[in-house]
């Protein structure tokens, strides 16, 4: 009897899931399978045909490609830079907000503004503000005797600029999540610590950080995965340049496919990127279940 109800439950569950699963299969499963299939052929947009099966050659070429190595390195430094900066600023602001009553709602709504903004718009706005001769930022720097800075024209500057603009756009993500974690912390350990005479710094180090660890890990993991995908801001602000200073992996694959027209190799690169993201997501899921 019990099993019959369970079987009916199962059937009902699958029936409810069916439309979603079919859609996912159609718009994600099938295209990915096709991309992996294409990665096994010498398929270019000049000669779009599946006549030339090359096995894993595209992967071998990709992995030996110096430009790919460079793009991977740029992506790694970019992700490390934005995550470190966003986490530091984010944690500081979250701590400040957590111990503030007055004006908290206003601060909060302000910091939410960039979060849902279109990355294209963010890129365009900052291009405008950072324009070397017409931009307001260089003018203001000039007033205090600095600059003018060529924000996007020089390789090192461009990399730093892109990092800073991304920080402006995304730092609130860290604040919102860390603040949610902070406000859910229990009060008792802090009171006990105060009775024992612990300083603010000590209770931060010995109570806040250990208790916040799971939230911090999940927040950082999600941010890292999203940061690896960064594309829009690069397209708008630098097109991977100057030279290849901001050639993040997504933009590099885009160039291989639609400028280099080598779709076979681009698909192989996409396959490699996919493997990295899936591995990180599986790890994220394991961590999330423990939060």
């Amino acid at each position, binding site marked *: 009897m019990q099993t019959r109800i369970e079987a009916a439950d199962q059937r009902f569950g699958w029936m409810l899931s069916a*439309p979603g699963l079919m859609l996912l299969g159609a718009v994600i499963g099938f295209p990915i399978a096709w991309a992996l299939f294409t990665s096994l052929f010498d398929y270019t947009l000049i000669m779009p045909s599946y006549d030339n099966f090359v096995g894993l050659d595209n992967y071998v070429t990709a992995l030996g490609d110096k430009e790919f190595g460079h793009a991977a390195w740029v992506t790694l430094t970019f992700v490390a830079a934005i995550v470190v900066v966003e986490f530091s600023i984010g944690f500081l602001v979250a701590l400040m907000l957590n111990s503030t009553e007055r004006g908290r709602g206003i601060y909060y709504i302000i910091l939410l503004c960039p979060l*849902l903004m279109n990355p294209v718009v963010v890129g365009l706005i900052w291009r405008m503000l950072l324009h070397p001769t017409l931009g307001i930022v260089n003018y203001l720097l000039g007033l205090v005797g600095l600059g003018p800075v060529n924000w996007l024209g020089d390789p090192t500057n461009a990399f730093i600029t892109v990092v800073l603009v991304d920080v*402006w756009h995304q730092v*609130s993500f860290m604040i919102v999540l860390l603040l949610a974690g902070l406000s859910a912390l229990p009060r008792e350990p802090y009171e006990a610590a105060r009775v024992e005479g612990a300083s603010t710094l000590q209770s931060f180090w010995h109570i806040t950080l250990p208790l916040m660890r799971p939230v911090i890990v999940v927040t950082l993991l999600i941010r890292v995965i999203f940061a690896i995908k960064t594309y829009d801001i690069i397209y708008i602000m630098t097109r991977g340049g100057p030279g290849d200073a901001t050639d993040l992996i997504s933009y590099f694959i885009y160039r291989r496919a639609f400028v280099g027209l080598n779709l076979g190799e681009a698909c192989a690169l996409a396959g490699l990127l996919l493997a990295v993201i899936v591995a990180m997501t599986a790890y994220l899921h394991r961590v999330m279940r423990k939060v």
Partner: protein
Amino acid sequence: MRIKPATLLRHGILIAFSAAILLPLLWVLRVSLTDKLTAYKIPPEIGHLSFDNFIEVFTRFDFSLWFANSFGIALATTAISLPAATMMAYAAARYRTGGAPLLVTVLASQMLPPIVLVLPLFLLVTTMVPIGGRAAITLAHVAVNLPFMAWMMVSFFEGETKQLEEAARAEGATRWQAFRLITVPVAMPGILAAGLLGFILSWNEFLYALILSTSKSQTLSVGLASMETQAGVNIAPLAAATLLGLAPVLILLPFLQKYLIKGLSLGALK
């Protein structure tokens, strides 16, 4: 009344941070409301208020077409994704349908870099299924929205309405009736929030729209990106256009505040 130095420092940092966010946006607003000549002047001058830039956006650029495309695509994407995602999330939460493998698949789909999917989708519409730009972009956005919404909603359905459903079932309601008449109405605010966030995801999306659109199906993101090249550094109308593009999202923001944490943390935090 004395203010403690620690409080002062705290507000100092928070005000500096808020200013860093607000001032650039206010400057864009200021540029959008001046006439063209003033917009270019360095050092800045206080010109007179003018709405010419907002008018120019509609007359010299295809802004209304971009806006309508983005709106239509986002609406269609949400209409397709939301019911499917709701049912899938409910099944996963209540009946454990698919178990952990399905959940990881959904999460991984959500994390999928657009560049991975855009290559085969481009091949698909150019070689096999020649559908129009708007339809192609909508399908691509379903690939973004469906996993996002489903993952966000799984936690809505865990526990909350279980007892109500069981009571309804004891009264003779079918599983479908319990879901349709009890669970969905109770969870409706959350479902709507998931829908709105999905709408915004589609509204803001760029890469799929860039690759899959034709000149007729350009979305707002693609249109705005093309404005700069079309018009040189024509910052005054560009400022107006970016603000118009932001408006719908900023208007929705207060309504979404409550659900934002769940959406952003992928359900890990409440």
